[in-house]
Each structure stands twice: as structure tokens, then as C-alpha cells.
């Protein structure tokens, strides 16, 4: 199998490189041979060759620079998504998929137009929160942290219900976006490490029904997940 960490050196805040490490490990532990490519600005990736693609979050400036490069993949990314290819985009990276990003100075940046939402940034205050998010495909909530300065309007197919944390915009109780097997969320950091059940779910999507995914080694991961879920649940009750 081939994994791609795209914009690995410029969209990589909050230890996010570990998302690709986590996917690589679960596949190898499941007996699957893996090759991981790390590509960035100016490279030309053949997206169709990959079984999993990951893009992390960046500074607002870096996101705009990357958007200028990423647009060259619009057609190939669309067909990757259409054929059910698995892709994870964390933090502000998935904002690039929309129609338009308006920055704090009201400069407009045309998005890829793969989804028809719009993004508005401000530069006064970071909007941050620990998060518990519920997906319809799993009875295990996701935990993590959201750290952003933007509001997203018009996501037709959100990924999560927000139990604790922040929605796509301040009036929204839904978070992220899902299109086929594209998962976009403003959760930041190594979410596939922190959420072993979500890792298992996405790994299953990659390998298909015929291959069994090995989750026996995930003991500390599951314990760590339970501790955080329990801590955040206390926080949720107090709100």
C-alpha cells in the first residue's frame, strides 16, 4: 500500500506528522507492506497511486501559500474522492476544499471548489477548545483539540456532532466535512494516535473487508483515549 503525507513540512503544526506514522504502523502490524511518501511544495504527486492521503494544519499564511500549489490537484483529487480513496485533512487544511477563503484583511482566495462552503478568518482571537465529537459511523466519540481563527459556512455534509468543543461556525453544532471517504476536521494534532478506534475505522476503509486489521497492540493508545475522554467528560458536565 502507498501512503502520502502531502505538504509534510509546511502543514505540520501540533505533532501532526504522527497521523501518518499511526496509519503506517497499523497497516504493517496487520501484515500489509507499506510505502510512505512525503511530498510538498512544487512536487507532483500522482494522487491516483495512493491508498491513503494525509494533510495537516498550517499557519494562516502557510495555508494560503499551499492553496496556490494544491489547486493543481483539483481534478485528480476529485476523482480520488469519487473512487472512495481515503483522505484525512486536519486543522485548516480542509478549508482549502471550499469555494472561497476570506482572510482577516478581506482578501479573497479562491478555493478548490470540491465542496461549496466558504471560510471567513479573523486575526483578533484564537478560537480554541478541547473537544468530544460524535460520528454516525462509530459509537466511540473522538477526542482532541480545536484551534482556529475562522468560521466555516455552508458545509452540506458535516462529519461530527459536537458534544464538547466548536462547530464549523459559532452557530453550528456540527463539525468538519465528509465526502465519501474524505474526512475533514478542525481537530488538530495526531488524532489517529489519540483516537485508536477512529484509526481502526479508517484503516478498515483502506484495506477493505477481506483483510483483518490488527488492533491488539493498541493497549496504551486505548488507555490514553479513555483517560482523556473521562477528563473531557467532566469538563462537559461542568459546562
Amino acid at each position, binding site marked *: 500500500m502507498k501512503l502520502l503525507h502531502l505538504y509534510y*513540512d*509546511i502543514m*505540520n*503544526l*501540533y*505533532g*501532526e*506528522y*504522527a497521523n501518518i*506514522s499511526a496509519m503506517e*504502523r497499523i497497516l504493517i502490524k496487520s501484515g500489509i507492506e507499506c510505502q510512505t511518501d512525503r511530498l510538498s*511544495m512544487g512536487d507532483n504527486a500522482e494522487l491516483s497511486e495512493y491508498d491513503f492521503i494525509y494533510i495537516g494544519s498550517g*499557519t*494562516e*499564511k*502557510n495555508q494560503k*501559500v499551499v492553496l496556490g500549489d494544491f489547486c493543481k490537484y483539483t481534478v485528480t483529487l476529485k476523482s480520488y474522492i469519487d473512487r472512495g480513496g481515503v483522505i484525512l485533512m486536519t486543522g485548516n487544511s480542509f478549508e482549502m476544499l471550499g469555494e472561497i477563503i476570506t482572510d482577516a484583511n478581506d482578501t479573497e482566495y479562491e478555493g478548490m471548489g470540491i465542496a461549496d462552503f466558504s471560510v471567513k478568518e479573523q*486575526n483578533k482571537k*484564537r478560537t*480554541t477548545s*478541547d473537544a468530544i465529537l460524535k460520528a454516525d459511523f462509530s459509537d466511540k466519540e473522538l*477526542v*482532541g*483539540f480545536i*484551534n482556529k*481563527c475562522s468560521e466555516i459556512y455552508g458545509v452540506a455534509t458535516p462529519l461530527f456532532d459536537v458534544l464538547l468543543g466548536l462547530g464549523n461556525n459559532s452557530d453550528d453544532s456540527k463539525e468538519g466535512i465528509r465526502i465519501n471517504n474524505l474526512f475533514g476536521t478542525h481537530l*488538530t*494534532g*495526531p488524532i489517529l*494516535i*489519540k483516537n485508536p478506534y477512529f484509526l481502526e475505522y479508517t484503516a478498515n476503509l483502506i484495506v477493505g473487508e477481506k483483510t483483518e486489521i490488527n488492533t491488539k497492540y493498541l493497549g*496504551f*493508545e486505548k*488507555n*490514553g483515549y479513555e*483517560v*482523556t475522554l473521562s*477528563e*473531557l467528560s467532566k*469538563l462537559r458536565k461542568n459546562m
Partner: protein
Amino acid sequence: MKLFLTILICKLLRFFGKLIGKGSSLPGKIALRFCPDILDRVTLPQYIIAVTGSNGKTSTVEMIAHILIENGKTVAWNKEGSNQIEGVTTLVLANSTLTGKIKCDILLIESDERFARYTFKHITPTHYVITNLYRDQLTRNGHPEWVADAIADSIKDNTRLILNADDPLVSLFGEGRDDVIWFGADKLEGDTEICTGKYDDGAYCPKCKKFMRYSSRHYAHIGHYKCTSCGYERHDTDYTVTSVDLDKGLAVINGKYNISLALKSLYNIYNILAAFTVASVVGIDGDKITENLSDYVMKNGRVVNFTLGKRHGTLLTAKHENSISYDQSIKLAASEKGGCDVMFIVDAVSRKYFTSDVSWLWDINFDMLNCDNVHKIILSGKYCNDLAVRLSYTDIPESNIKIFEDIKMAYDFLNCDREEYIYTITCFSDKNKFLSLL
């Protein structure tokens, strides 16, 4: 009259606050509510020196104060580390006469990097040191560029900047200013050409976002850089660490000032260099500064030597949510030639606010522990599972790692006949959970 009353109230609150052990920000907070422009009304001394940046603020300010006081200057400084506008207001008014004149030669202010824009709306520093910009408390700070924008809002035209030339993001504050005082280190033994950490915040030029090249890296993105496209590059320095010998514990500034190090880390040398620079600017003789800084042991409790049963050790205060701080502590432990055990405690991520986020563990270069000098590694605290997962992504043999959620059990494990030195690496939020057991 309002000035007089506000100062009086602040002084009284400060006095009684000290008696009952209260923090130093409340009197300033009340003073600001009573008289919002109080800081504009007071008469400030000739030198107002501000220090901000991600890491090293408290240590740098403590060393500056030490040198200045040793050389007969009177200094008002926020030694308790209350570094937002309220704490600074308390500092200023507590050192003021009732008519609003500050009774010292130098006002020395450590300022929180994100809140400097509020503090320095009212007080214009004559000199403004910016130490570095790292990934630090990203759960609150967003990211280093976000913090840089906040600091930019706090800089006034008539302030003289004192900048770390080796940090590309910090150096950007000097663009278009011709009176900047630059400090930095020459190419040093132990420098690398490539980035050896888990991420590289120096990969792209902060100015034009094209690729940047380093001829020499001291650590992380700190070093000698040049943009391959716009030509943005490291500025020549006025105050320079010209050589370092960490084994001997010696740093040389400007080729002639030999400073003996109490804490043998490069990280500490930058704080020393910043303090040396400020003291020189104020007019203290280089030989005097060298004498004052040599073997100076910080009083701020960031480094604590301890005895645990028959064993000896040092607690190094790294900051949770700050990978460079951890990297430097780990590097120090890994250089212990006599062999050491290293203990990590992550129990409360922050002492000031709640978060359960441990993403920052993945930015720390734990691989440095995979060396002959490090024997056992002990992981402890509520987030010991996350530490265990993180270390499982290094090549450190599993048999060298011990995991105890309970800090007392980790302590009991260490309390044995092993002869290795102990390094305990943790944050302010967690250090007393260990120190109280000793």
C-alpha cells in the same frame, strides 16, 4: 488627586496582598479599573527595558536584574513573573512615589508575548528584547506566526529593538529599522546543517515563504539561514557567542569574555547572551558582566538539585506544551557521561487552564534518549499512557521504560541502590508533585 489615590490604593493592596501571600496582579487590576490611564500618568525612569519571546524571558530578566543590581543600579522588575498588564501596573505603582515618579534607574519588564500590545500601549520601552519564537502553548497561542503578529502590534517606532539574529521569525521585526542591536552565536561545534528535530519551523522563509537554507543550525530553527529566493538572511551580530565548550562549561562572548556556565545548555547561553547585551547597552563594563554571570545559579527554581534516598539528581523544569524546552532538557540529560535515569511527569498539562491535549509530546525529540548515557526511563502521571505511546514510536528498547501512573510509585522505584544520576523533567504545573515527596 486621582493619581495619588490610585497609587496609594495599589500600594496598600500590594502590602496586604503580600502579607496573606496573594499574587501580584490583583492590585494592578484594581488600579487600572480605578484609573485606566494610570500608566500614562506616571513619570518613568531613563531606561525602560522590556523582554518578551517564547522561552527564556524569566531567566533573562533575572540575570539582567542581577548584573544591574551588582553594579549599583536600582532596578524595578517583575520578579514574581506577573507579566501581563495588571502585574506590570502593580510593579510600576509599587515602585512609584505617591506623586507618580518611579524610584529607580531602570524599569525592567518581563512581558507576556501575546499581551505586550496592551502593556506597551501605555509604556514605551526604550529597549525591547525579543528572545525567540517557538511552538509554545499552541492550545492558547495558535502558532508562532500568530504570536509574532501580536508582538508586532506592541512595537513602537521610538523603541530600540534588541533581537536574536539567529531566529528568522524574530529577526523579521528588524526589517526597515536601522538601529537594531543584534545578538547571536557564530557557527559552533555541535551545529548541524540539517534539522535534527521532529519538525522544522525554519524550512520556509518567514518573509516570502520560499525555501530557506541553513549553513549552520544551533538547534531547531535557530542558526544561520538564508532564503533561496528573496535573499532574506541572518543579520550580522553586535554581541556574539564566539565559541562554546559544553563539556568544560564555558561560553565565550565577543571573543574575549569567558563565562563559566552553571547550567551547561546552549539554551541557557542564549539567555546569558541576551543579558550580556542589555547590560552592555546600559553601560556596564564587559569584564564586570562576565564576573556577574559566571557560575550564576538561577534563583527562579527552574533547576532544583535533590537527593532521593542515597541517590542524587536534578529536576529540570521544562514547559509542557513547549517541545524546544523539553528537547533542551533531554539533551542535557543525554549528555550525562556517568549514566543517568530520566523521569518524565505529565499529570496536569497546564497549571493555568484546563486542557487534555498532548499533541505537543509528538514534537519532542525523545529519540535523543536512545543513547548509552541514558539507562532507565520512567514515565509518570495521568498522561503516562500518552508518554508510553510516544516512546513506542522511538527505537528505545521497551525493557528500559517503566510506567507508573502514580508519581509516588515512580518515586519508590527510583528509591533504590542504583547508582545512576537522576534527571526529573517536568513542568511548573507538576514539579511539586515530585518535590513534595523528597
